[in-house]
Structures are given as structure tokens and as C-alpha cells.
């Protein structure tokens, strides 16, 4: 049995016929065709599949797609506007805050929520805010630096060649 579901992803509407047990993660990747959202564990433990649902970070492997109907879903593909990177995306590039890139989409979206909710977080609040997103490559040092560079509404200037 499939249900007719309309999902709003990155401001676009997708009409889909979905089996009710399918997760938002699977539907985003397989039916909507947006593979920027990553499956790291399928258990809700690693944060790689984080998307924003009505602005709040959700591990999309733990949410049924049918439950996302009527909500605004933002994936990593929806963060840049008209080809202009979000300040966090810019900061991740400038600070070398990514290596393999597999945790990066979830990490950036979690950081976006963190700064949207609290534009002036302390270092400790940034650590706590990102604690649910695992990264094995970076040791988090440059990720924390990138997010710190974006607090207080700062927009990182493009890095100049040294």
C-alpha cells in the first residue's frame, strides 16, 4: 500500500506515492533525488543524515517521510541561495573544516540551527550544539573554528591567498 504524500523540500513541492514505513532519509535520497543527505548509521546516532524540518534539526533516518508532510524540509542542497553560499558553507571552506565531506552536510545544517536559535553562542554552547554530529576526519577543531567565525552574525570574508 502506498500513500500519496506531498513534501516541501527546499521550497519545492514533490508529489510522491510512498510506502508508509519509508524514512525521510530514503525518500530524499531515492525518490526526491537529493543525495547530499548522507546515511552514516541508520540508527539516529551519527547525525550525518540531519536535515532541517521547520527549521529544527532532525535525523532523517529516524523520521517517516509521511510525517514530514506539510512541513518545510531543508537539505544541504537548499542552503545556498541563487548560487551564493551560506556563510557557514563559506566558513567551512575557509577554515578547512571538512575532509572526506560525508558528515559535512549534517554538520552544517546542525550549525545553522544552532546559530539561528542563538546567534551569540559561547564556545561551550557551540560544542554542545554539535555534539550529536560525529566526524572522524577533523577532530572537530576546524569545524568549531568555522562555526565560531560565523557567530554574532559575522560573515566570513573570502580567504585571501597568503
Amino acid at each position, binding site marked *: 500500500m502506498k500513500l500519496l504524500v506531498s513534501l516541501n523540500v527546499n521550497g519545492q513541492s514533490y508529489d510522491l506515492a510512498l510506502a508508509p514505513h519509508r524514512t525521510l532519509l530514503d525518500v530524499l*535520497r531515492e525518490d526526491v533525488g*537529493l*543525495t*547530499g*543527505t*548522507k*546515511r*552514516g*548509521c*541508520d*540508527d539516529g*546516532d*551519527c547525525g*550525518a543524515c540531519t536535515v532541517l524540518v521547520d527549521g529544527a534539526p532532525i535525523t532523517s533516518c529516524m523520521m517517516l517521510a509521511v510525517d514530514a508532510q506539510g512541513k518545510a524540509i531543508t*537539505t*544541504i*542542497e537548499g*542552503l*545556498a541561495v541563487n548560487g551564493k*553560499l551560506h556563510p557557514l*558553507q563559506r566558513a*567551512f*571552506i*575557509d*577554515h*578547512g573544516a*571538512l*575532509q*572526506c*565531506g*560525508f*558528515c*559535512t*552536510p549534517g554538520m*552544517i545544517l546542525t550549525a545553522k540551527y544552532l546559530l539561528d536559535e542563538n546567534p551569540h553562542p559561547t564556545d561551550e554552547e*557551540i*560544542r*554542545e550544539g*554539535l*555534539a*550529536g*554530529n*560525529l*566526524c*572522524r*576526519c*577533523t*577532530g*572537530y*577543531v*576546524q*569545524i*568549531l573554528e568555522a562555526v565560531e567565525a560565523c557567530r554574532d552574525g559575522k560573515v566570513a570574508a573570502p*580567504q585571501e*591567498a*597568503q
Partner: protein
Amino acid sequence: MTQEFKVVGKSLPRVDAFAKVTGQAQFTVDVSLPGMLVGKILRSPHPHARIVSIDTSAAESLPGVKAVITGRDTTDMRFAFVDTPRYPADQNALAQDKVRYIGDEVAAVAAVDAETAQAALDLIRVEYEILPAVFDPFEAMRPDAPKVHETEHEGTSIWEQWGAQKTSTSRANEKVNNVSGRTIITYGDVDAAFASAHHIREDHFETSATAHCALEPHAAVAHLDPSGKLHLWLSSMGIYYKRYVIAKVLKMPTSQIHVHKAYVGGAFGGKMDVYPYEICAAVLSQKAGRPVKIELTRQEVFTTTRLRFPTYIDIKTAVSADGRILGQHIRTVVNNGAYRGTGPVVIFLFHGWTAPVYRVDNMRYEGVSVWTNSPVGGPQRGHGAPQIRFAIDSQLDMIAEDLGLDPSEVMLKNVRQIGDVLPNGDVLKSCGLTDCISQAVNVSGWKGKRGRPGSNRLARANGTKRRGVGISTTTMISGAPYYPFASAGIVQLHDDGRATLLTGVVEMGQGSETTLAQVTAEVLGLRLEDIHVVSGDTEQTPVDMGSFLSGGATVTGDAIRLAAVDAKRQLLEIASERLDALVEELEVGEGRVCVRGRPDRCMSISEVVRLSIKETGNPIIGHGFRKILSGTDHYPSLAKGTGRWTDAYGFNAQVAEVEVDTETGLVKLLRATTFHDCGQPLNPQIVEGQVNGCVSTGQGQALLEQIVYDKGRVVNSTFLDYRLPTTMDTPETAGGSVESFEPAGPFGAKEVGEGVVAQTLAAIANAVYDAVGIRITSLPITPDKVLAALAEKKQTA
């Protein structure tokens, strides 16, 4: 030796960064092909059992199932990382007669979707005859222990056409049960060294199995097209290595296999070996006539894609009164798990990470790897270095205490220097160990923070929290001879004055695409953004040794430099005619070729390329190649440790500062001060990222991480139960590169991404001792171990 660079040595943004922050970077799991099926693997629930029968009929008749395979479809598909006459390959794509660990591959299916594939697995009936199992390597070596591998395979090798001997003159595992590999290395006169020693210590250390935890679960997409060509997308660290092994297993010509480009979501050693699921994807695709994707679950990744070898180490060391190491006797035993994998390699490497750090003239090293019915061990960032450096530098700390000396000074007395020749003949043409230690000591505030030997540490500090510092050092090769031995690069210029770099390297996070583009831009006088990188595709890029053995900067980097130099040579030859100047008088920069010192006599590179195409048809394509240890065509001996191994070693030293809570037993890493000798850093920001990642992984292995087994079953196969460091654990980091230049590498560069992980373990263990006076000799240093040791200390005090 300081050189002025325009692009190399700068913290320029990664060339893959835009794709990765926007979700556009394509990993293997993101590949979707028309008609693609989902593949899944049926795995053994038993640690050791004979397969009596397999009935796949119900699975095959389930609607939506397109192929089912068992060991009958893979009878002659035997493979292994170590595949030599002495150590014949011992793993099959699917179990033949019996299963040897929980997770062993038994059958595989391909179906129209994941649910159908799972339902098909549930319908496969396997009848097992349970066999007695053995999990402990010491028990496994007893004569009456169950044999994990009952029959010895014939001593053949898939590497014969590359010069491997057809037969071995000796077998490693004669007499002793379940021994999968053995290394014995001796030099000097160990007995005399011990006889003349001022002080001798003998200690035992143990390390746990740990998981790689790359965020991308392993995946493979296989498509055998109607023409007979096999297309693969793989989670790999070296496309040419995997292509060769898969070609041999499938009995296909190597060039009939096309490994396509895919970004790899972290590897750390766990994506080096060829795995049964990769072979299964290819066989399923052949049988179904459609593309097949296999994506492992996180639980499968934890249990079936190799773990760091759990290791038991005994070290006996003889020193002089001033702390110089006179002789050393090291014995190691690793739990190899059910298949050999790299077991015989890691026991060789334990010595390999010993000899380049401290000069020890009299050595007896014995290593044994042992089959058990446990998950398989394998390479993991540092491959053996964390285990052996933990043991050696923990013991050196203890020796320094015994002698009333500062351990950093004991290290300085023993470390290797430039020009040293190692016992196997490797020459240290660069070696910044002394600088690494001195700077780590200075910048960390070591002398002020350290408790003096013999002082009552528990009395220092108030409340329940005590701080301490510890130091450790390590090394890593910059590439070694292993198939495909060499790296090659192609640099093609375009008529707009830009260039495309073709390299077989796999970008798995280490930043090769960026650093190699920087090397290319530096040689050609272009900007980083002028270089387009095509990487990791066997039909589009030339051979590359792969992103393991830490040869990326030195071997691949130099191949790319030579390719750019070749393109530049052609460019200058054409320009010299038009500019009416000798080639030697020309220079490149800012996209132009100019007569040196004559800015009025220039041509843009774009103009030169157009001229070349117009006049001769030459579009200007440079090529370069590089091999580690050129002139040698043999591997070093795994069994004896003889034979040269690499051209260059990276070095590191680290001071860790910890806080131990004596009430909870919790150890927190506060600060890691790391100095490394990676020669000339190609991109300091990328180097910093490698170091930070290593510190974090080392911290995890020192304090948090441990795969827990229960009779061969991995108990903690989720990220919730297997704790790796999060942002809450990130220490303050300090340090940097020491001044160094490696003549073997491009612009003086060498390894940095792997060695650093190894020293954090002893640095932390030594810091815990400095803080509270307890010596933890088995990793990880968990709160219960700390509390037990504190209680014992109190009792004996």
C-alpha cells in the same frame, strides 16, 4: 632549506570543498544506474561451523529476486591482502566448507529493492554443524585448540607475474597451531647488551580492537555491461590495487574492469582490503545482468570490515645509567581473527615503527599473528604504530622514572638523526625528531607542568582533579613498495592557459586533489584555480599506488611534479623560438612565459599552447612517474625484516596534558601539543587537519574506544555503544611543523596524515601517570581501570 613558493606551502581552500559543502560530491552510495538492483549478504551467526547444506530455492522464487549466489558460485575465488607462497590467500568471496567468524559471508542476493532483498535472505535455509571455537590467541596456539583453517592452500600467489616466487622455501606456521604469520628480526648482540646494562626493565602491554568509524559505510556498485566490461564504484583507498585483485579473483583482464571515480567518505585503513561484498556485487551483476549496489549497514561495517589488531606486547629493555637504550627484546602477539588479511604485515610493522625512532643497535624482535574465530584484524591509521609506540614509550617513561631522569631528555638521547642508516638499509635523509621533541617540550610548558620523578603526585593539586603531562614520539613511512608500486601523472595544458591534472589518487578526505593541484600550479606558474583535477578513475587517470602506505605526498606528489615539469619543458621549448631566447633564460609566472628580467618579452601560456597546436598539433601534455625505492623490485621480507622499505620517514612528537578525576576515574585530554616533521608542508591547513584528526582518533583509542567481544560476537556495533570522540572531547591543540626538507619528495614534502595518531596513546598514558602516579598498561584507559589502580595504589601506600 627555505624556498620561496607561490602556491605550495599556502593554506589554500580545498578544491573539493565546494562540492562537499553543497552536497554535490558523489560517493559510491550516491551512484544510481538504470535498472539497478539492491544486493545484500547473508552472514554466519556462528563463530565456527561447518556448512552442511544451503537451500536457496524459496529465496530464488520470491518475486523481485533477480540473483542468489552461494559458495558454489565462488569456488575458486580466493583472495587476501597478503597473498604469497609463504602466506597463501585464505579468504573466499563466500564461505566454502565452513564459516569462521560471526559475520562470515555465506550467500548473497540481488533484488529490486532493499525490502525484497532482506526478505530473500530470510528465506535462505542454511544447515550448520556447530564446531568448537577459539577466541583467544594464546588458547588458539595450544596443540588441542580447534583449527580455524584446517587445510593449507597451495603456496601460489596472484603476484607471480610481478616477480613473486612460485613456491616458498619455508612455511611460517610449522608446528604451532593457528599461527597465521611470524616475524623474527635480530641484529647486534642482544645478550651482550643485557649483560652490560645498568638497568633492565621488562613490561607487558595490551591494546584493544578498535574500529575505523569512517562516516561513509562501505559500498560497492557493480555493473557488468553486455560487452563484458565490468564497471565498479568502490569505497576504496586505491583503485588500481582493488582492480588488480578483483580482476585476478574474477579471472578477467585488468583493463576489462573500469573503476569509476567516487569520493570516499573516510577510510583510515578500513577501505584498503578487497572485501567479499565487492566480489559478490560483481558476481550478482553478472548473474542478474543488471547493475547491483551493496551498501553495508553500520553493524556490518563494525563487524566485517576489519578492526585494529588487538595486541599483546612484551618488552625487555636494557639501558645505560644515563638512559641510552643498549638492547631491546620485543615480543608481540596479535589476534588475527578468522582470516589472515594483513596479520603478517602488522607483526612486521611493529618493528618497522620501532627502528626509525630510537637507535637500538642490539635487537631481538619476535611477532606472531594467530587465527581465531573472531572478526578479522586489518590496517587502521598507523597500522601497528599505535600499539607498539604505546608500549615502547610507556616503558621509556617508566625507565626514565627508574633512573630519575626527565623522559623527554631520555628520548633526546636515543632518537635518530639525519644520516642514520636503519638496520634494513633505509637512510634518513631528513629527520626532525630532535626538533619535534624540543619544540613540543617548550611550547607545552612541559618542565613547569611535570611532576618530578619520585614526587608524591597525589599530594599535588587540590580537589579531586589532578593534572599531568606525558610525551611520546612516532614515525611513519612515506610510501613503500606494494602493487601497483608506482604513481604516474598527466598534466594537460589548455588553449585558455589553464591545465588539467590527471591522477589515479583516491580523494578520501586527505586533501590530495588540492595538494597535487598546488604542486602542478607551482611548477607551471599558474594559480590553484587554474588547475582542474580529474582523479581516481582507471580509464581516465594513470596508475597510482593508492592512498595507503602514506605515499601520497612523496610518491604521487613527485610523479605529479614531474608531469608538470615535463609540460613546462615543452611549453618553454615552443616559447623559446618565438621569444628568441634560450630555454634556460625563460621563466613562468602569472600565466605567462617571460624572458627572465624582461617583462616586455612575454607570451601568455594560452598563446603558447595555441601556437603549439596550430604549428605542430602538440596540445602540450606532460607526463611523470615515480616509484618508491626505484631500482628495487622486491618486497621487504615480512618474516625477517630485511630489505629496504621506503625513501623517507615522517616524524612526530607530542606532549599531552590531561586531567584525571580521582573521584570518577575519568581522564580528560586538555591539550595536545604536536610537532611534526613532514618536510615542507604542501598546504599547512590540510596538514593541520590531518594532525587534528590523528589526535582525536588517538585520544579515542587511548581513553574511549574498544570493540567488546562476547564469544566472537561484537557486542557494541553501534555508534551509541562504541563511543568515539565528539565535539565535547576536543582538546586544545597546539604545535606545528618543524623546519625540514625531504629530498625524495616534491618541494621537500613527506608523510603527515598517519603517524601522528600513534603517539597520543603513550602521551596520554604517561600524562595519567604524571598526574596521579598510576600506570595503565592496557588500552583504553577507562574510569574503572583508573579507579582500580588508584585503590590499589592507596592500599600499597
